């Protein structure tokens, strides 16, 4: 049983590709814009082009396709549920019936909507994974902090928010490893996690969740202590080892993403 392998969501894949070297601000803004645009794309060809663009960025970022596909695994259930619900319930009245399952009627319009929304959900997860695959947590924090700077006047604690985010990201793999370790320890004591009905399975998780919570609290206390021991006191007058630097490549990337967005929205 190996856990961390199968859930690479939010995992950074170190490399020195062109995409990795872009300024984190470029990547954060580009991802955000792409996510918003995704909700305005109204045609299948638009979504198709969006998908091709993601594949291209994966190639430029030297991310193996298999690795990227695995990041979609956690949303498979949600995806199937969405497709199922839409197929049967989203079709308007004046639509051709495709097939029926008991009292459920699948309509052509319903199926279209289902596929469209399913594809959109898939692309949404893919585009966000792209950001975390190619941007280290430190860069991500620096980028977010810089982007939140204008809000400081309104009392938004940009640095603290960014720090919290990066700590959360940093601890996802750690907590997964911990979960795996505790599950194995309980399996060594005869526990089974993949048998029985839903209720039984949920109950089987208590011996995992209790130690996991305890260890998460212990870790957070240790981390807070270690940060204070090194005089951490928030963002005031804090300098950085790596300054963010805007390069020509970033301008090119922004231009390309903008052009692509227009294309996604316009294509028929």
């Amino acid at each position, binding site marked *: *049983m*190996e856990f*961390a*392998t199968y859930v*690479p969501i939010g995992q950074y*894949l170190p490399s020195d590709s062109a995409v990795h070297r872009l300024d984190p601000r470029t990547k954060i803004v580009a991802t955000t814009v792409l996510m918003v645009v995704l909700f305005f794309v109204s045609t299948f060809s638009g979504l198709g082009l969006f998908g091709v663009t993601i594949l291209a960025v994966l190639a430029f970022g030297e991310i*193996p396709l*298999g*690795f990227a596909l*695995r990041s979609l695994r956690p949303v498979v259930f949600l995806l199937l549920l969405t497709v199922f619900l839409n197929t049967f319930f989203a079709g308007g009245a004046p639509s051709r019936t495709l097939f029926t399952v008991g009292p459920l009627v699948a309509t052509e319009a319903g199926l279209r909507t289902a596929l469209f929304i399913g594809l959109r959900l898939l692309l949404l997860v893919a585009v966000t994974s792209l950001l975390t695959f190619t941007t280290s947590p430190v860069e991500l924090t620096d980028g977010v902090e810089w982007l939140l700077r204008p809000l400081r006047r309104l009392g938004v604690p940009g640095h603290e928010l960014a720090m919290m985010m990066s700590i959360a990201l940093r601890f996802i793999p750690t907590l997964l490893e911990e979960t795996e*370790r*505790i599950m*194995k*320890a*309980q*399996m*060594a*004591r*005869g*526990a*089974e996690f993949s048998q029985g009905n839903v209720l039984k399975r949920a109950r089987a998780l*208590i*011996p995992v969740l*209790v*130690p996991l919570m*305890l*260890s998460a609290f212990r870790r957070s206390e240790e981390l807070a202590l270690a940060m204070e021991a090194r005089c951490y006191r928030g963002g005031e007058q804090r300098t950085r080892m790596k300054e963010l630097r805007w390069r020509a490549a970033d301008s090119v990337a922004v231009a390309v993403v903008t052009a692509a967005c227009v294309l996604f929205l316009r294509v028929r």
Partner: protein
Amino acid sequence: MPEPVIACEDVTYIYRRGTPMEAPALRGVSLAIRPGELVALIGPTGSGKSTLIQHFNGLLRPTAGTVRVAGHDLWAPRADRRRARQQVGLVFQFPEYQLFEETVRRDIAYGPGHLGLGEATVAERVDEALHLVGLDPARFGERSPFTLSGGEMRRVALAGVLAMRPEVLVLDEPTVGLDPRGKEEIIARLETLHRQGLTIVIITHSMDEVARLADRVIVLAEGRVVMAGSPAEIYRRDEDLRRVGLDLPQAALLVRALRARGLPVADALTIGEARAAILAAFRG
């Protein structure tokens, strides 16, 4: 020779297989653990010790090779891995972090509770396990495990595995992070269990524990078995040990230092042996 309780044949294991971060942890490990022996598994950090013992009860599936427990291939079709988990009691590193119940008694009952035993039998086993780790059931049974000291918590966790009555007890660094008294309590309990006939495999970084406890030593380095033999045989090859990043027990180092200074002391591995050897040398 009796049939081995655990037998590994050419076991290979690769972490994160099929991703760019693929890393081989075991490269063709073959070994056999025989009934009644106490085997120390030593090796530098990252040599694959912890990965190896997770193969002993079927928690990890070897990428290649076979693992047999009491003669049964764990990964044959229809293999009963739950039974293997009862036969091979695995105690992980820092096992006190797996405690979760409200009382010590209930936590220890978690393991035997999965074996389909009656309530009375489970209670009996819990008492027996508490005695085995030297905790009085009347005093500790109804306490919350989280109010105990580190050493006590670890012994409760150990009891949680012993209560399943395993045929082999496998422990990953059972004394790490404990104070000297906590360490001694665990080691003394293991000695007693071994004397009573339990087969034990222990991963440790303490050469003194190896010298004191082990009938046989298996040295792992970079996912391979590089040496195997009695402690005396292994410690005779101190050059080879140092090459993989290990060293001799303190007592052995002491007698060697004395010999280098001209005192004719015989070889010794434990403090007791060193004491006898040094006294003998002085009496001449």
